């Protein structure tokens, strides 16, 4: 249990660090906060107006006190007010989040269902043509950035099939699952392709490592069939690094969503960040970045829990 206890203890610590970093980075923006907020219009303010604005936003207080009150807001889900949407940042984020979450999960499902079997297949045929083919494919997959693949997919669909994926709209899953899937399937393939390649590579090398372990030899020595050796004895051990990778990659998926949502013009969190940066809506930038980092951390905590499920050495502690 010490391992999990340690992870549970460091989680809030890192979260605190993340909040400090996000808070400070926005304060690092050159120029004063009022100008940053209002842009050129700030020049028209009188000193009195400036001072009252500063008092209103609390930026006349010392920085640690600003941080504490901001942190206090965070605990109540208050991420400030978005300038461009004139709504609470939290509301805006929650409107956009379902799309990005679904996109990331869908990509992950695609990547794992393709990657794990391919990796296992390649490992059991180590050195044979099918292994070489899988490895070549995985290498190319890993070297194809989502923005290249996305543009290529749109190109092929529009030029050769005369089909333009519905862009700019989003139908929630529960409203019309088919329309929803039609909108998300190509973005999800785009986003999950490189991830599938990494999963394939990791599964293959983990599987190769495990297949040369002594306990696999033991299983063979007692007459276990090849299928059972692979799926029952080797795979549970080989999945451990795959789970690690999935945790890390989920972060990349959330990040990669920025680019894929831009290509397919999907109104998700990624587009929101880009718009916020473009229009200097710092409360929104800060809120979205923090929100995504929080989700990433939660996923990694879940990954640590998954470890414990998969590996009794972690669950029960060492001797």
């Amino acid at each position, binding site marked *: 249990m*010490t391992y999990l206890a340690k992870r549970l203890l460091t989680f809030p610590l890192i979260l605190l660090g993340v909040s400090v970093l996000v808070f400070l980075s926005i304060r690092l923006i050159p120029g004063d906060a009022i100008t940053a907020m209002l842009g050129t219009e700030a020049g028209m303010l009188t000193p009195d107006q400036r001072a009252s604005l500063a008092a209103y936003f609390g930026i006349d207080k010392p920085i640690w006190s600003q941080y504490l009150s901001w942190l206090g807001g965070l605990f109540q889900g208050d991420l400030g007010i978005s300038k461009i949407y004139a709504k609470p940042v939290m509301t805006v984020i929650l409107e956009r989040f379902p799309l990005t979450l679904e996109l990331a999960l869908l990509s992950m499902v695609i990547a794992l269902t393709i990657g794990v079997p391919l990796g296992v297949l390649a490992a059991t045929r180590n050195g044979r043509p099918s292994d070489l083919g899988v490895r070549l494919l995985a290498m190319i997959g890993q070297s194809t950035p989502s923005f290249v693949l996305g543009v290529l997919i749109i190109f092929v669909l529009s030029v050769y099939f005369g089909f333009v994926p519905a862009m700019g709209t989003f139908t929630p899953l529960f409203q019309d699952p088919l329309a929803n899937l039609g909108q998300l399937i190509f973005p999800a393939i785009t986003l999950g392709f490189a991830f599938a390649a990494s999963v394939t590579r990791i599964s293959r090398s983990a599987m190769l490592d495990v297949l040369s*372990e*002594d*306990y*696999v*030899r*033991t*299983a*063979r*020595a*007692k*007459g*276990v*069939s*090849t299928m059972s050796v692979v799926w029952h*004895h080797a795979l*549970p*051990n080989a999945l451990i690094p795959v789970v690690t990778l999935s945790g890390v990659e989920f972060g990349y998926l959330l990040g990669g969503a920025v680019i894929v949502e831009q290509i397919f013009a999907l109104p998700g969190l990624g587009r929101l960040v880009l718009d916020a940066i473009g229009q200097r809506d710092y409360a929104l930038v800060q809120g979205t970045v923090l929100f995504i980092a929080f989700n990433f951390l939660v996923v990694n905590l879940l990954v640590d829990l998954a470890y414990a499920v*998969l*590996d*009794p*050495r972690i669950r*029960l502690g*060492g*001797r």
Partner: protein
Amino acid sequence: MTPLLSVRDLRVGFGSDPVANEVVRGVSFDLAAGQTLGIVGESGSGKSVTALSINRLVDFGGGRITSGSIMLQRADGTALDVTGANEHALRHVRGRDVGMIFQEPMTSLNPVHTIGAQIEEALRINRGLRGQAARNGALAMLDRVRIPDAKSRMGYYPHQLSGGMRQRVMIAMALASSPRLLIADEPTTALDVTVQAQIMALLAELRDETGMAMIFITHDIGLVAGIADRIMVMQSGLVVEQGDTATVLDTPQHDYTRHLLSAVPHFTAGRATRTDSPRTEDSDPVITVDDLVVRFSIGRGLFGSKGAVHAVDGVDFDLMPGETLGIVGESGSGKSTTARAVLDLNARKRGQITVRSSRSRRPIQMVFQDPFASLNPRLNVEALLAEPAIANGQHKDEALRERMKFLLNRVGLPEDALTRYPHQFSGGQRQRLCIARALMLNPEVVVLDEAVSALDVSVQAKVLDLLIDLQREFGLAYLFISHDMAVVERIAHRIAVMFAGQIVEIGAAQAVLSDPQHSYTKRLISAVPAVERRNQHFAIDTTQVPSLLRPVGYEPPKAQWRQAGPDHHVRLEAVS
């Protein structure tokens, strides 16, 4: 009567051209039902590959049988040539006809399945048992290999068991399928000597109970003496000699067998100790260790310490110039921690280490167990040997180079070794390099921590001889740490036996080995295999090493000593 197993001219090769890379080069032998064959050889002799060919596990390690036959009588009366069998037939050979146990109990069990499930699987595949029947069968097997409290251990994962217990589980798993032949590939090499004795006793008893045949593979010719009916000696892929155990051991025909029997250290209960004791009444010790205590606290965290492992608890000894003190004990006895504490590699909690040195700024040097780990692979020999000198303010000049060449020469390595890298040397040569490096600063004491344990038996003997020569030439005192009683017998003037962090017996080597007084020393010495201890019945004994984890602030009671001879002291045991 047809033998159970008949191997003819077996050849096995590896890699893309197995004929060119043969590891087994024409091995033939027969094994009758119920018989035990001991295969003896050093690393690279092809003994394990021969064994792995019998159930064709060698295929999965990249090996291929290039020619020969392996005829196996199966339980249903048919004979099968394993070399030509398909994977389907082999699956029934493995487990049902031929069971196998391996060297590394730590890695040979699947870490994600419980030991109960792993035994049940064997019962399910090979005996068709399911559900409760399989569970009961597994439980019965655990009982048969004498795992205490088997019922609750069924749900344990391998990492929750000690090495000896895991090896018992391996045996239970192999025997669950009631094989007619059990192959044991160095099954006790990774275990402590008293645990080895327990496992050997168990194997002998189960063999007699079930009437199965056994192939026992080992590098230790003394170990097969106790269990085998026949012995086969292998060297570089060839059988150099085979015959009845008594014949091979008493009238060896081949030079290599004679070499294994004579040149290799064998335990003789104190008859092979050194006689050149440098200890006199008026000499001053070069090191005096007084009440050495090393503890590692456990669970240090927010909530304070849970306790401490008392790795070394109140150890005293002294070491005279030119003398070897052998510290023996099993894993966890604190012998290596003691060695490291003498060199300040482990922080000590208490204790005085007094060194009287006249000739060196760093009078104590060390040689480690693993010659592959103690030489930086990225530095050449010149840089490796120069490091101690440079660290102590010398410069890389001609005088230093001369000293390096002198020492290389002295440990039996060529001068041109200077420009080579560690991976270009064999294990024995690397250990010689480590010895040369330890002598660079002209020390008075060399701590040898299992310094020959990682070497092949015939190399061991040569390195031991070199150490004794160097000791005389340079007047070195050795602190020789080892788990191997036979090796210690050869080199030590005095012996200290450690158990659970404490010295339980110390004195002249001859006295301690021939007339052990403490109950642990007796147990240890009786567990050591020896050529003359043939077909001996090891008593089944499941004594476990006590936990060294103590609550915070615990202090052991003061040791009471009894004198058993002129230089022989024994710790008094608590009456229980």
